[in-house]
């Protein structure tokens, strides 16, 4: 039999058991398949999730993804359904809505904006009984904004709390 090429041996380069390498390869590919399958279910964002809270004389619905990835655009839709006269329909958004997020637009524009204990206050003015206000906020995630944050929303009539929604958002890198 001819000699093997220089620096090659039959033990190492022909007959070596590569089952360990094969297991590692298949394991890694399986992991990638699992990640892709999880992504198809929306695990890594960003299907919207609805949260609803009924309060005294008003209902608030929030539709927004609770899992997003750096750089993505997403929409938060806030619906206020008044069951009685609300003098000053005011949304108070937790810092998770704004920390490391770009707000591209708010439609309709609130009549007033301010801050309440570090949270964003959007005043949409008067709502009559059976009035329905839908506010659209368009966001983009800052790529460095990784982690989990509170995205609670409270609905006030002026200073009186009507309803509140507890939410969190997870930002993947």
């Amino acid at each position, binding site marked *: *039999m*001819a000699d*093997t*090429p220089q620096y*090659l041996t*039959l033990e*190492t*380069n*022909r007959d*070596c058991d*590569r089952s360990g390498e*094969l297991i*590692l*390869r298949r394991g*890694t*590919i399986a992991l990638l398949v699992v990640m892709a399958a999880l992504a198809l279910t929306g695990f890594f964002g960003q299907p919207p999730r609805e949260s609803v809270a009924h309060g005294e004389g008003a209902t608030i619905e929030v539709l927004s993804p609770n899992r997003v990835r*750096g*750089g993505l655009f997403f929409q938060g839709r806030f619906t206020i359904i008044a069951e009685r006269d609300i003098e000053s329909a005011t949304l108070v958004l937790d810092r998770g809505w704004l920390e490391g997020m770009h707000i591209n637009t708010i439609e309709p524009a609130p009549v007033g904006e301010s801050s309440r204990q570090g949270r964003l206050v959007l005043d949409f003015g008067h709502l009559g009984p059976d009035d329905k206000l839908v506010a659209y906020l368009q966001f983009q995630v800052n*790529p*460095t904004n990784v982690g989990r944050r509170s995205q609670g929303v409270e609905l006030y009539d002026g200073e009186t709390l009507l309803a509140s929604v507890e939410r969190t958002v997870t930002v993947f*890198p």
Partner: protein
Amino acid sequence: MDIVLRAIFGFLFIYLLLRVMGRRELSTQQPFDLIMLVVVGDLIQQGITQSDYSLTGAVLTVGTFGVLTVAFSYASFRFKRLRPILEAEPLIIVQNGKPVEKNLRHERLTVGEVAAEARLQQIPSLDAVEWAVLESSGKISFLTRPT
């Protein structure tokens, strides 16, 4: 700082991906191999640099890739035990004109593909091959029988 971390992660991920995909993707020209090699750079770039259009960002990412490349090749050169992990060992796939089926299967290579590579090197038949070795780079080297 995070741009360097993303570059390190991107480098390690591509390295791992290329290692687990096997050597055939490194050199063969099948459509699916080409798709992988052509799009991978484009897909990873946005994840690493994201919205950073700066020259500083480009220097940091390219620099990180350069440093890691040197570090990996130095580790492979300096530490013999790391070599089979960092780069695949050359694999004998034809001996005395006969394909080594186990190794071909391991690398998802067909005898037809090996014969095609041989033809590219002016070898009309595998019968004329004494040794064919799938090198770490994914290329196949052929040593012909003495005439």
